[in-house]
């Protein structure tokens, strides 16, 4: 089975190479991309099937056994993230193909889009699989570099303006991450995560705190944790819909993943847990107030994105098995749902010509299918039962109540308030964009005449994600089994360390 | 195929082989190992480089003249040392503002290669600098520092012609060497 482990990175990169070579054959490019990501999904599912009950799978790249070389580790958390990310990226890819075909690829130059998208995917999977701190950095760089390209695709004025914010902030976070790596290597002489787990423990507390803060800072920017989050709502919404969707859904979660990984493996008893809880509270509340204040659907969704990162931090900050399990479940849920909502927002933009609440209206009647595609994931996001958002929140609230303590109770309250305000924000969108009498600028004939008919492939991809998000409710039992086993594995640390050092040194 | 075209082909092959030989030589110098393996590698690499990046052939009208080359090298080294010392002195001399001039030197041999090599040689010697060139008339415009008066300027002009002559005598063809005997070209555009 271990031979499968590098494939989720290798295959998309290979796809990128092939699509570059096929840059004049759009049809083939699309086929290669879909094929590659489908295969990645299959591999991810196989990895999850193996690790769900078994030990982590590891690969010493090039035969250079840990700690000398780079080791790739697929444990439960990583495998789960791989599955979700592969599924989401595949759906978004199909959506963007639909969009590209409908637009004659004017808005999405295929020659750039497919290689960049596939490289983005490879970066994400690499970050999940990295068992080496510097390789984690490289994974981040891959996905970030690709994201810079994708967020500025089309190079319009607004995309350049907002893209600059995104790129510069991300570059700063990369620099901070690299600084952290330099400091950690200086202090420990190793990069291997499993080995770091032991060596960091031996360092004095103050130094540990310094190293931990630098990592948290770097990942906190990527995950959009308040007060490091303000860049996100400014930069995501202007990109093309599939890009915004996959960024919002996936990229922030890679940051969250990195926080989970380093917090549990490297700093399990680190002194920054309380900081995380405070950050969680602020992220939740400031984020959702931002959402309430917005008058554009995509910006509003971006703020809810920030806000709900707070939920995940809440679980991580609790550091209990239940908290981590809830956080991981929430990550999975949020990847799917936030992506879906941004795809739906893309459809809204297509149908209504805008995502500004000022000028939208009557979508529920004009395009009922769009109503379903938005309403269901919106309720899911707001944590309305029986959707997965509710289940994730439930897990976190249970963990919070179990933990007790003033801060935990404040966070329970904060979570509840955030949930309500999310519903309020979503409800406003629904009332204005979907229920209100259509604005005069809205074409009434299903959009066909104005060229605003919704391409089937786009609707289909969004629908698939809606179904996937709803399906999380049905499989929540087994899924929570996996997340709680993943949480246990994370907290025990030993399974990971043993798996890494099982290989022989060359 | 005419005889003329086959002659052209022969010339082209000769140019290619010369180019390849230069590359192989550089290759050997880079490795510093003079073995058959290095040589073989050099030939392969040179061939690949020339094939992948084609460039117009450099056609030498003449051939290297060892004596001329030696004469040129010795004179060049002498000039180099002399000028460097002069200029260093100039630099350290406080309170002195050196005067300079920009002069036109239309070369006698109408060849880009001669133009370039003369220009390089002149440039390499401290105190003179190619400010501009005119390809059509093979003219160098040279900035000279440390010239006190018109006489010094003319002296320098003669030195440039001497350098041109040494270069042509080192690598030029018979025809080119013959051109050196021509009078120094005069200015064509007095009306400007």
């Amino acid at each position: 089975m271990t031979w499968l482990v590098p494939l989720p990175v290798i295959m998309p990169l290979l796809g990128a190479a092939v699509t570059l070579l096929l840059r004049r054959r759009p049809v083939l490019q699309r086929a290669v991309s879909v094929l590659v990501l489908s295969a990645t999904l299959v591999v991810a599912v196989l990895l999850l099937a193996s690790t769900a009950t078994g030990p982590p799978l590891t690969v010493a790249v090039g035969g250079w056994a840990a700690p000398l070389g780079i080791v790739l580790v697929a444990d439960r958390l990583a495998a789960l993230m791989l599955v979700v990310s592969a599924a989401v990226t595949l759906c978004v890819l199909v959506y963007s193909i639909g969009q590209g075909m409908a637009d004659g690829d004017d808005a999405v130059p295929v020659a750039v889009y497919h290689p960049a998208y596939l490289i983005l995917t490879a970066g994400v999977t690499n970050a999940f699989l990295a068992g080496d701190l510097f390789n984690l950095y490289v994974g981040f760089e891959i996905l970030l570099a690709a994201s810079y390209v994708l967020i500025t695709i089309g190079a319009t004025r607004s995309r350049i303006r907002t893209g600059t914010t995104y790129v510069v902030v991300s570059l700063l976070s990369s620099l901070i991450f690299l600084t952290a790596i330099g400091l950690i290597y200086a202090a420990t002489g190793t990069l291997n995560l499993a080995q770091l787990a032991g060596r960091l423990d031996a360092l004095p507390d103050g130094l540990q705190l310094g190293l931990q803060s630098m990592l948290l800072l770097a990942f906190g920017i990527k995950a959009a944790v308040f007060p490091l989050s303000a860049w996100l709502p400014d930069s995501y919404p202007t990109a093309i819909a599939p890009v915004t969707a996959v960024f919002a859904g996936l990229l922030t979660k890679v940051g969250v993943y990195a926080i989970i990984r380093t917090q549990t493996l490297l700093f399990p008893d680190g002194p920054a847990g309380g900081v995380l809880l405070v950050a969680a509270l602020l992220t939740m509340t400031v984020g959702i107030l931002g959402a309430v204040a917005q008058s554009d659907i995509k910006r509003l969704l971006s703020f809810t994105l920030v806000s709900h990162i707070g939920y995940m931090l809440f679980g991580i900050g609790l550091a209990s098995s239940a908290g981590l399990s809830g956080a991981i479940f929430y990550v999975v849920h949020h990847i799917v749902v936030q992506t879906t909502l941004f795809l739906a927002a893309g459809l809204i933009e297509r149908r209504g010509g805008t995502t500004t609440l000022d000028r939208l209206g009557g979508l529920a009647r004009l395009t009922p299918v769009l109503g379903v595609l938005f309403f269901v994931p919106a309720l899911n996001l707001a944590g309305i039962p029986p959707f997965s958002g509710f289940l994730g929140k439930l897990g976190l609230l249970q963990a919070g109540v179990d933990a007790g303590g003033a801060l935990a109770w404040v966070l329970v309250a904060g979570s509840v308030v955030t949930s309500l305000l999310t519903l309020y924000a979503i409800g406003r969108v629904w009332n204005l964009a979907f229920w209100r009498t259509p604005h005069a600028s809205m074409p009434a004939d299903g959009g066909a005449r104005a060229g605003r008919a919704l391409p089937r492939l786009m609707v289909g991809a969004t629908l698939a994600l809606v179904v996937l998000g709803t399906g999380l409710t049905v499989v929540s039992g087994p899924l929570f089994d996996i997340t709680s086993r993943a949480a246990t594995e994370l907290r025990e640390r030993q399974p990971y360390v043993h798996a890494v050092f099982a290989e022989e040194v060359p | 195929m005419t005889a003329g075209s086959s002659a052209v082909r022969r010339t082209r092959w000769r140019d290619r082989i010369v180019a390849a030989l230069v590359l192989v030589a550089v290759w050997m110098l880079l490795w510093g190992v003079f073995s058959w393996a290095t040589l073989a590698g050099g030939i392969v690499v040179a061939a690949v480089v020339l094939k992948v990046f084609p460039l117009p052939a450099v056609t030498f009208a003449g051939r290297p003249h060892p004596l001329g080359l030696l004469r040129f090298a010795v004179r060049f080294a002498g000039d180099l040392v002399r000028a460097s010392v002069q200029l260093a002195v100039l630099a350290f001399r406080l309170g002195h503002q050196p005067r300079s001039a920009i002069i036109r030197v239309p070369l006698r041999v109408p060849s880009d290669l001669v133009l370039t090599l003369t220009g390089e040689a002149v440039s390499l010697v401290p105190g003179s600098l190619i400010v501009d060139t005119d390809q059509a008339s093979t003219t160098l415009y040279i900035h000279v520092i440390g010239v006190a008066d018109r006489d010094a300027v003319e002296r320098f002009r003669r030195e440039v012609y001497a350098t041109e002559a040494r270069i042509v005598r080192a690598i030029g063809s018979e025809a080119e060497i013959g051109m050196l005997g021509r009078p120094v070209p005069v200015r064509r555009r007095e009306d400007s």
Partner: protein
Amino acid sequence: MTVQTLADLVAGACLVSGAVLSLAAGVGLLRFPDLLSRMHAATKPQVLGLLLILAGAAVRLHNIIDVTTLVLVGVFQLVTAPVAAHMVGRAVYRAGQARGDLLIVDELREDRTDDGSPAR
């Protein structure tokens, strides 16, 4: 006096004189009144100074692999340095940075056309 000591002496002399030429360049670069004059100062460490130091290094390393490399370095430097000087000098002149008051004659000005290049 062994061969070794003699070699070191030669190398030392080369190195020190090369360094002196570099310093002279620095001084000239700072003191010469206009840019074209400074450019002449710049030539010294690029040519003679460098050649001297390379020679010094060659004496010290006296290993065929390294000496060949040093020869190449010297050749490459001799080929490329004048090009840079020429291109910069041309730009300086065309940008009007050549100080006319320091020039005894300027024969290029007589020949210049609108686009900066000399007449054909």
